[in-house]
């Protein structure tokens, strides 16, 4: 129970979760999709719907 009240426990848990999500995303080859989306002009952002 003391562990569950410890802030450091949650910080380590969240760090581990975020790093594992990033690694999973890289392994699933999400990066090219992120890059191509970023390089495509977003007409919705400009307001040209």
């Amino acid at each position, binding site marked *: 129970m003391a562990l569950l009240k410890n802030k450091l426990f949650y910080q380590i848990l969240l760090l581990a979760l975020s790093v*594992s999500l990033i690694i999973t995303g890289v392994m699933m080859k999400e990066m090219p999709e*992120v890059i191509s989306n970023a390089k495509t002009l977003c007409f*919705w*952002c400009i307001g040209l719907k």
Partner: protein
Amino acid sequence: LGKIKRIWWQISGLILFNFPFIGQLTLPWLPVPVLNCYSCPLALSACPIGTIQHFLVIGAIPIFTVGIILLFSTIAGRFYCSHLCPFGFLQDLLARITRHKVRIPNFLGYGKYAVLIITVILLPPLLKEPFFCTLCPAGSIEAGIPIVLQAWFKEHFAEPNLFSNVGGILSMIGWWFWFKIALLVAILITAVFIKRPFCRTACPLGALLGIFNRISLFFTHPGIKSDKRNRYYLRTCPVGITNPRDVDSHNCIKCRECHHPPDKKN
């Protein structure tokens, strides 16, 4: 780091995320923890909210982007909102125009979660378009206005070019563009009288970063104790927090201005 004035952090953030000398989208793979539109002609990297919506539109789960946001959130919570976000900086500058401020009820702070769930998570896969981007005021000021102005100047003052698409952009301007500009103007006018209205009530990125605000690794405030050393000076809080127990809540942007007594002139 704490001794550097926040305005210098904000100016650095503005330059860092829109660095005109190293070219557009130098780091397109990195969703940054600030609301900085990736369609801005000077943008350095990807917008996390736009990236999340794009993945939901194509029927995929944005695992990498969620991981990056979670990492940023765990490291410093909403510190980026107060120190690096260009749109937050603009609202802070507008707030300097007048000292007469209107208070808003606390429950409006949960509006950003409604915006996150409805416009970022639910509507994009249903409508097959990044719905939040169609309303985003940061997109209007960083991408909409510069790109349309650029196209307008090119059409009126540059040499005619058969392969240029500027005429295409100008012909696409419709009522939605003007609606988006009106929304931006409304938010900016509101920012003069209400401290950071967009960040507090509607920013989906602030909602995401704020989830773990209380347990972030850095920049958390010391807890409230009876001794005076942990007293907070909330009169100048840029997000209008009045209760010391709300420091480090999802509304707190970790500007740390409450650590110092306000200037007597204020």
